[in-house]
């Protein structure tokens, strides 16, 4: 869809701008090592985008930088270059480029790459994120929601479930920063999340519910694994949530209009 200025790359750039508070906070706290890591993932993802442009005339997208940032922040830290290149390539190629590029994919490439790494190297060391990075999620979400590139309904759905859990006395998982970063970077991706109004509420709610459930019952897994698994299942369920929303709308309409 193109409306005036708003084509695919505008959305990708706005998303990048929205994520900047998180990215900058993370880079400032982690220092040059994080910068090198981000550069590495940018190189791998960018290389695949350029290769597909040359091979299939598929325009590269700035969204590749979002994938690289998510992987740099969340991928295991003690893996060799080979493993990281393999995981990134799998996510970028199989989940995004093979479907026709960003905007036509059904799963977020970073989610797929992280799930691939998680299943392939179960014993790897997952990174922890500093608490300020978690706080930086709030301005990121506000900027994204204000410009319409991150669905406010999705964020509110997640917050509603958190509020309900707090009222019911269910304990929040520790390392909330990781869940927040996964929410804005992976779950709220406008391409792979639900697209109907009700579907977006359900999408956010489902992510929060799954995350709380995994944190309570899945022992022995790192928070990144819990959050990424919740994100993967949520994006797999997103079409179903849309389908539910549309079916509900049709039923109500039929009842009202006969």
């Amino acid at each position, binding site marked *: 869809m*193109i*409306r005036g200025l708003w084509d695919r790359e505008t959305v990708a750039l706005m998303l990048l701008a929205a994520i900047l508070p998180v990215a900058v906070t993370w880079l400032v706290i982690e220092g040059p090592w994080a910068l090198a890591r981000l550069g590495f993932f940018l190189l791998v993802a960018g290389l695949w985008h350029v290769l597909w442009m040359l091979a299939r005339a598929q325009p590269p997208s700035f969204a590749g930088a979002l994938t690289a940032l998510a992987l740099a922040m969340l991928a295991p830290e003690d893996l060799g270059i080979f493993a990281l290149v393999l995981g990134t390539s799998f996510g970028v190629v*199989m989940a995004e480029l093979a479907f026709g590029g960003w905007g036509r994919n059904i799963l977020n490439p970073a989610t797929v790459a992280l799930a691939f790494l998680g*299943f*392939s*190297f*179960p014993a790897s060391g997952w990174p922890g994120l500093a608490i300020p990075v978690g706080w930086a999620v709030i301005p990121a979400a506000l900027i994204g929601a204000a410009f319409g590139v991150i669905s406010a309904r999705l964020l509110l759905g997640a917050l509603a479930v958190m509020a309900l859990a707090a009222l019911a006395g269910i304990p929040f998982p520790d390392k909330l920063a990781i869940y927040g970063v996964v929410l804005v970077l992976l779950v709220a991706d406008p391409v792979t999340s639900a697209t109907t109004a009700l579907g977006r509420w359900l999408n956010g709610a489902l992510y929060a519910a799954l995350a709380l459930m995994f944190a309570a019952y899945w022992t022995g897994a790192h928070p990144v694994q819990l959050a990424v698994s919740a994100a993967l299942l949520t994006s797999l369920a997103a079409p179903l949530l849309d389908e539910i929303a549309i079916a509900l709308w049709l039923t109500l309409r039929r009842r009202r209009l006969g």
Partner: protein
Amino acid sequence: MALWTTLTTPLIRQNPITLQILGLCSALAVTTKLDTALTMSVALTVVLVLSAFAVSLIRRHIPGTIRLIVQIIIVASLVIVIDQVLQAYFFDISQRLSVFVALITTNCLVLGRTESFARSNPPLPSMVDALGNGLGYSLILVIIGSLREFLGTGALLGYQILRTTDQGGWFQPLSLMQLAPSAFFLLGLLVWAIRSIRTEQTEPTEHEAPRVTEPAE
């Protein structure tokens, strides 16, 4: 010459797995190790050739209405024999193959060949066709089995080629390759590779992507 074509066509051009997408269940389940994949390939090829021979011999006497029942009885009897042979001589591997040898009976590939070829051709061409299809199936199983065992454990046929990090080497085994989804990924990549080279196998597109243009001023 015609027999040679019958034998080689199912290897890649009409491969039962990558083109006809038949016999996937066993192809995905037994390929975690190369030795199970090889055993399964041999078992299926033997059953396929013998059942094609038997069905082709009595093709003029099978009543059309009950032909599937007759074919299943023939295939099932052969499968029982193979299963017993495996249990007698390769007990360890037959344990690891579990039900998948018995499930050759319901393999679409076997019934597909007896129904579509052996039922209407003399014994020799039927057996050659069955052998070709068995080899085509085996080819894919061996490729996927070796990739999964090699990437998943760094070994081939149990012989350690790359030393894993546990053993003091550098190779980090991909545990994912020992799980079922990886067989789908590898098979998908294989189909992709074959169809990029042999473009005549590519299916027509079901959906035309909308053209992206600036809206009219």
